[in-house]
């Protein structure tokens, strides 16, 4: 048990800090469309040029082959630099954290050679086509259909909650290739070129006034069979490898950011008048305890994440912490912003942007996504109950 960083890790942190100070874009990030895409890709290219793309990707695929600890150090230094945008909100997120890693694990040599460099260099945006209107929590019941026609798949159906589909080049797409098989068995994972004819995209605006989500409709969309990743009809397993990646380090950035948010909220409570209209908010015993608890919880969440990293480093296999981290983080994130609304009092009437320091109502509305997206907390609790604790299913 130790918290010591190796000299390499210390050097890495120093290097990251120095580099970030010099290269972080001033922002603000354009809120939508091609400008946003260009901003995110430019930042990815800057990372690539600086040697910061694919920090924990294997060296053979263009990554730096570093550990999750270095990945965490990077996130911490990024947050410390007070960036004008959040990492997990970038339209390069899926490529870096889902699509790319899935190709690394399950892709063919050709798929890797073609796609991975583009992702790292910031040439392309990837999006995810998993959920459907009828397949949310019950993802395996998806019905978007792909029939083999010669050496192509012909896709018909619909996907939903596809972030950045409207600016994406490629999509990791789950389709049903064998409707007669049991529901987990007839699914394939394919790379869909978003410029293929027959694809129609509609933006969905969220309650937090963001329109990065899209619905994607497929009308006889033809995808070469060579774009299947892994075996045909074995896409559920391919997808699960992505999801377990997603449940690991990809969310460290969110946690690091949340810790910074808690500190900003403590500062906010020091300067604002509290519920009694006289003292500072932080002098209110209830607010003070909720802030202290949030600070303790975000600190403990980091400890749980480090325990998870430690386990992966030792055994190569994630421990039970992963799904707990996800569950705890989502609800803590919401509690923090609900507390923020209690602290700002009547200023809660004013809508703010979803990011930016000192903004609370926009992020409050956005916080609802944290217990829904990527599997609702109900599903997370099922996972913890069944897979970690071994409780039976009904």
């Amino acid at each position, binding site marked *: 048990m130790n918290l010591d960083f190796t000299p390499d890790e210390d050097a890495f942190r120093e290097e990251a800090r120095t580099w970030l100070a010099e290269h972080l874009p001033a922002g603000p990030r354009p809120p939508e469309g091609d400008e946003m895409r260009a901003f995110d890709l430019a930042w990815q290219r800057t990372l690539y040029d600086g040697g910061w793309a694919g920090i924990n990707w294997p060296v053979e695929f263009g990554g730096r082959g570093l550990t999750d600890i270095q990945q965490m150090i990077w996130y911490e230094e990024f947050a410390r630099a007070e960036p004008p945008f959040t990492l997990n909100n970038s339209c390069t997120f899926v490529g870096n954290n889902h699509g790319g890693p899935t190709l690394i694990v399950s892709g063919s040599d050709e798929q890797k050679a073609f796609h991975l460099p583009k992702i790292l260099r910031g040439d392309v945006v990837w999006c995810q086509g998993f959920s459907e209107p009828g397949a949310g*929590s019950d993802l395996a019941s998806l019905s978007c259909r792909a029939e083999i026609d010669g050496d192509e798949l012909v896709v018909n159906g619909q996907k939903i909650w596809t972030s950045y589909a409207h600016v994406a080049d490629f999509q990791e797409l789950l389709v049903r290739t064998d409707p007669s098989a049991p529901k987990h068995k007839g699914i394939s994972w394919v790379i869909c070129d978003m410029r293929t004819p027959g694809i129609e995209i509609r933006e969905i605006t969220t309650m937090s006034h963001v329109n990065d989500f899209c619905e994607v409709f497929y009308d006889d969309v033809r995808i070469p069979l060579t774009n299947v990743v892994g075996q045909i009809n074995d896409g559920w397993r391919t997808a699960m490898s992505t999801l377990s990646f997603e449940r690991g380090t990809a969310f460290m950035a969110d946690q690091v950011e949340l810790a910074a948010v808690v500190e900003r909220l403590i500062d906010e409570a020091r300067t604002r008048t509290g519920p009694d209209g006289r003292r500072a908010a932080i002098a209110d015993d209830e607010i003070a305890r909720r802030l202290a608890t949030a600070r303790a919880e975000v600190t403990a969440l980091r400890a749980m994440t480090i325990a998870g990293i430690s386990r992966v480093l030792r055994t190569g296999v994630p421990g039970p912490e992963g799904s707990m981290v996800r569950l705890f983080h989502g609800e803590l994130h919401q509690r923090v912003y609900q507390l923020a609304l209690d602290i700002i009092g*009547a200023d809660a009437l*004013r*809508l703010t942007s979803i990011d930016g320091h000192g903004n609370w109502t926009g992020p409050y509305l956005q916080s*609802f996504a944290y217990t*829904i997206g990527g599997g609702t907390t*109900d599903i997370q609790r099922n996972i913890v109950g069944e897979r970690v604790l071994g409780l039976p299913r009904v």
Partner: protein
Amino acid sequence: MDLLPTSEQDEIVSTVRAVLADRHQLGEPLGDELWSAAAEQGWFLIGLPESAGGVGYSIIEESLVMRELGTACAPGPFLATVLAAHVAALAGNAELTAAIGAGSHRVALAERLDPERFAVQDLPGASLVLVVDEAGIRVVDAAHVSASAVDSIDELVPVAYTDGAITGEPLAALSGDDAIDVLLDGALLVAAGLAGLAEATVTQSVAYGKDREQFGQPIGAFQAVKHRCADMATRAEIASCQVAYAAITRRDRRDDAAFHVDAARIVATRAAIDNSQINVQNHGGIGFTWEHTAHRFVTRARVWSLRLGSSASHQSSLLARSAAD
């Protein structure tokens, strides 16, 4: 002793519901038709005695109307308009009372944020402003109020901030006990609106729980969803019952009325905020979209919860009171 509405009160509720069903679409701004209908139906003066130019019912019927406006999640300056009529009537301004009753005025709500700043709700389109500050409660011409619009957390409730005090001769003003009286009615009406919001989210979650299927089941069959709905329903019911109780104590000018209004405000605020948040969760992804109406209840509950004092202020005053008899 009977806490349930009389058949006459039930009829009032039915009529309000019918009017709202007819002239209001959840998520749409206030239409002129609804405002005119509200005036025709006497909603603005329903709680005022006939001697004051009112319809002759009481705060009970007034709270039932406000609860239905909450249930429908109807936007529009109903609360401040009704309270402005109270102020006008109590101040003896019969002409103003009648004009408000006729629907001639939309009344914005200005509440003091700090010594030199007011937050004003529903200012666009308002001809009058109800101003609440330490001095009391008064009605002023909207021309006296200059405020800069900001983005509102609730798209349908415009918000603006003044950058100074609100001056200008009031058209009607109350201070002291009269002001306290109107503010007490106001707090009760806020609780009624919040209770309505809480109830509406139960309806929405339960309907979705019966309709939406995952894993081969309507999701309402899963205990996680079912139990959340049960808790939502309980919170909404307890809020509605306490609002009804408090309304009777106000109508009857009972000594414990302020106690019961505080209690109503506390449980109704909790019910509206918790229920509206959980309602989004129950809907999953679709509940997070702008197109779905679930978010309307979230932001409306926040707006109502900040009208005429916060839950914290009512907790503080409730605890300072003697036990109810």
